[in-house]
């Protein structure tokens, strides 16, 4: 049976060249980068080079990067640090959107408990914020605006440069969670007026457990954890040189290949979208064009997402769903509810996320298998029966 991995928004395979670049740093060059001897200096030099590579990809200075354990830590750190430091100046208002990743939303909830007021911007049916609504929401006491670059579920891409420009004009810090965007969409923190940015290596063919918080040199930041002098004392703990080198190689490869990979992946995505839209009572969630090259998010009325997901898995297709059953709560995805889907429809959602490893044969296979699975689940669904009766 054909195996198709179409859950690249969850995580990607480490690329062979990334793995190769990482391997020497486990048992050959294993010195602690903080050590002065040649063992340590070897890994310290490799990390410096990695840092320079990442900085080049983002358009910033190496000294503006802090290596973290991943996107979640970077998001937590950016929000909590900026909020608490701004509070000292009397700024206790934060702005974000309703459909951020939980790393963001749950940090915001903690800030609310600490006495901050948070404005959650609507993302409208197309999954995009409105700049005028952001402009209206900014107050004299607003400390930070945090808006994700591209959404992890429906893939919509926000107008980051315009948001950055607006925040700069209003003298408010701007953070973006670019976990889904890094390596897939162009990023330049200068041109896009980004003050802080989170990314995670495993979303662009790098290893898991490592990420970056970019923090502009003019933005103050304070420690979440305390220890030695690593990351200029801001994020202590012995570094993971293999992971950091792997992340740099992965980001460099992804950025260099972007111009050729992205149109190819987007073409596969568009074929997938067109094919799935041919299924009756299906809808594409998110913006038709302003979306990640690999992201196709669908809702199929009358069926439940987890059943669909597991049925696809039995055919060798790995996908994801925003149904409550896959989230471990009673409510379906907050992202799908934020763009106005009803609970019923949101339960029947399916996210397929392609990477540059996917082929046209993969898409053809998904399109060959999915309609029958949807039809089969609908044939035993009382909700579908009701929908069909209403139609008559």
């Amino acid at each position, binding site marked *: 049976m054909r195996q198709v991995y179409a859950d690249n928004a969850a995580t990607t395979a480490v690329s062979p060249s990334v793995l190769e670049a990482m391997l020497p740093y486990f048992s050959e060059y294993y010195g602690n980068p903080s050590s002065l001897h040649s063992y340590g200096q070897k890994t310290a030099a490799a990390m410096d080079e990695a840092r320079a590579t990442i900085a080049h990809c983002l358009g910033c200075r190496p000294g503006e990067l802090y290596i973290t354990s991943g996107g979640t830590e970077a998001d937590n750190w950016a929000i909590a640090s900026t909020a608490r430091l701004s509070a000292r100046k009397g700024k206790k208002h934060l702005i974000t959107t309703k459909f951020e990743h939980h790393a963001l939303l749950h940090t915001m909830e903690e800030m609310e408990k600490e006495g901050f007021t948070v404005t959650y911007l609507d993302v409208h049916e197309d999954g995009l914020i409105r700049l005028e609504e952001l402009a209206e929401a900014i107050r004299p006491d607003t400390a930070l605006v945090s808006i994700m670059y591209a959404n992890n579920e429906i893939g919509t891409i926000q107008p980051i440069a315009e948001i950055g420009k607006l925040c700069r004009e209003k003298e408010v810090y701007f953070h973006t969670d670019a976990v889904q965007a890094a390596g897939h969409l162009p990023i330049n923190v200068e041109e896009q007026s980004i003050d802080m940015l989170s990314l995670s290596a495993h979303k662009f063919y790098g290893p898991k457990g490592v990420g970056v918080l970019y923090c502009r040199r003019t933005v103050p930041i304070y420690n979440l954890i305390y220890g030695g002098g690593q990351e200029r004392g801001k994020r202590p703990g012995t570094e993971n040189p293999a992971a950091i080198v792997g992340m740099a190689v992965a980001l460099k490869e992804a950025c260099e290949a972007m111009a050729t990979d992205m149109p190819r992946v987007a073409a596969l995505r568009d074929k997938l979208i067109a094919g799935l839209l041919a299924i009756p009572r299906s809808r594409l969630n998110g913006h038709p064009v302003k979306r990640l090259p690999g992201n196709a998010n669908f809702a199929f009325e009358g069926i439940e997402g987890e059943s669909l997901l597991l049925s696809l898995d039995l055919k060798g297709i790995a996908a994801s769903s925003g149904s409550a*059953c896959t989230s471990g709560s009673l409510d379906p995805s907050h992202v799908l509810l934020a763009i106005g889907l009803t609970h019923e429809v949101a339960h029947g959602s399916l996210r397929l996320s392609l990477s540059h490893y996917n082929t046209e044969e993969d898409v053809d296979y998904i399109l060959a298998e999915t309609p029958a699975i949807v039809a089969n689940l609908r044939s035993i*669904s009382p909700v579908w029966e009701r929908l069909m009766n209403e139609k008559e």
Partner: protein
Amino acid sequence: MAYSEKVMDHFSHPRNVGKMDDADGIGEVGNARCGDIMKMYIKVDDGVISDVSFNTFGCASAIATSSIATEMIKGKPIGEALALTNRAVVEALDGLPPAKIHCSVLAEQAVKSAIVDYYNRNGIDYDKEEFALCDDCEHCQLD
């Protein structure tokens, strides 16, 4: 969260599936808002459930619990079908993940709901206490 082989078997090959046009009792429990609806059809001959079928909107465990519940009551006297507990359904499936236990409750409720419908249609008295139906189930107490 992993499903047992038994759950996956009943999910991918559900038994007694489909609408029954000449059912003597039909029960429907759950709601689409929280992601599960089970509809159960029974045929009753001489106090025995001679045939049973179901339609379910829901996750794999909702489909599997409905499927195995139909197997467990088919050919059984009504009294025995009424004694079906969600615990028995879970055991028959070699267990369910904790977050999915409510699916087994729904299956038990669907059976009871179909029998109540049969009683109502035939003017048979029953002890309402015995039938704490889905409206009382916390799972669906949303809004």
